């Protein structure tokens, strides 16, 4: 399950694009404390809660915090990523942090773990432009999720042999994701994510200034990231 969460880190935050809308500043688009609570169900019956919230935002960087809790095992995990270059064509994950109850302090994720995250991948999903979104748009549906009923744009794309179908709505800002269905030949590629609720005024768990170098225990929480 944790491996899946790591692979989802940068595909969950699909931002809707509206070419007619007046461009918002980064701080306006990503108000600190706002985010979404998702319910994740695997094909094998296991499930988890995943909360993605904006820890902080400035004119050029956004800190995104992920909180994961399994409903099947006593696992809780927090991650925070600082993404630089927001609002430009070139994005990069500048810093990464991890925290779990088993760790005394938050710990820094080494650069070598961050470089495995492909920039194109981030561009596709996080802060995606209207042009990129339009390429994969296949329709518009009224979607019923635990958070409520919402009209959402439907997108479909292939990723590592799996078919991802996802629904994006401006009403689910700032992340936009309402529902995601992944189907593929590998067992871990079969899962569904639905919006449980929007969240606001979330206080970030991880304080980057208190972070320490990655310990052996902390490394155990890091799934190997793919190198390209």
């Amino acid at each position, binding site marked *: 399950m944790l491996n899946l969460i790591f692979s989802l880190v940068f595909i969950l935050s699909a931002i809707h694009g509206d070419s007619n809308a007046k461009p918002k500043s980064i701080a306006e688009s990503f108000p600190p404390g706002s985010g979404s609570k998702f319910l994740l169900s695997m094909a094998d019956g296991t499930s988890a809660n995943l909360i993605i919230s904006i820890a902080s935002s400035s004119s050029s960087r956004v800190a995104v915090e992920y*909180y994961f*809790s399994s409903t099947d095992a006593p696992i809780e995990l927090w991650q925070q990523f600082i993404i630089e270059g927001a609002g430009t064509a070139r994005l990069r994950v500048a810093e990464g942090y991890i925290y779990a109850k088993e760790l005394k302090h938050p710990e820094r994720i080494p650069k070598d773990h961050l470089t495995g995250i492909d920039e194109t991948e981030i561009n596709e999903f996080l802060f995606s432009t209207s042009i990129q979104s339009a390429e994969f748009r296949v329709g518009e*549906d*009224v979607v019923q999720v635990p958070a409520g009923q919402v*009209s959402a744009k439907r997108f479909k794309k292939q990723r590592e042999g799996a078919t991802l179908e996802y629904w994006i709505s401006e009403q689910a800002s700032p992340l936009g994701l309402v529902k995601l269905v992944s189907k593929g030949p590998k067992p871990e590629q079969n899962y569904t994510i639905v919006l449980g*609720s929007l*969240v606001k005024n979330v*206080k970030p768990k991880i304080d980057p200034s208190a972070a320490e170098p990655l310990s052996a225990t902390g490394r155990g929480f890091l799934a190997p990231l793919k190198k390209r």
Partner: protein
Amino acid sequence: MASGLFLSQLLFAQTPAELAETVKQLKKDVAELRQEVQALKAQRMSPAAGLKTEDLNHRTFDGAQNRQGFGQGQMSSEQREEMMKKMESLKKLLDERDEALKSIE
């Protein structure tokens, strides 16, 4: 409207090619109508209805109040109080049941 026109064309089509063209137009018409229905549905859902939103009141996402599915961690004082009330209520019910059983015996 357009659909009526196409329907008459469908009824009086003379050749397979005419028929195919009319069917194609009808399909396009249906697709446009579907889009209109979706747009109307979207309009009907007012933003006021909105999506469910949880206000964390500047708390972090941890602790028993935010967990679902497993019971580790500390409970908040409100939850503890609520749990105590439920336990007292349950104990009272059990006592009443025991009394009732004794009276039957």
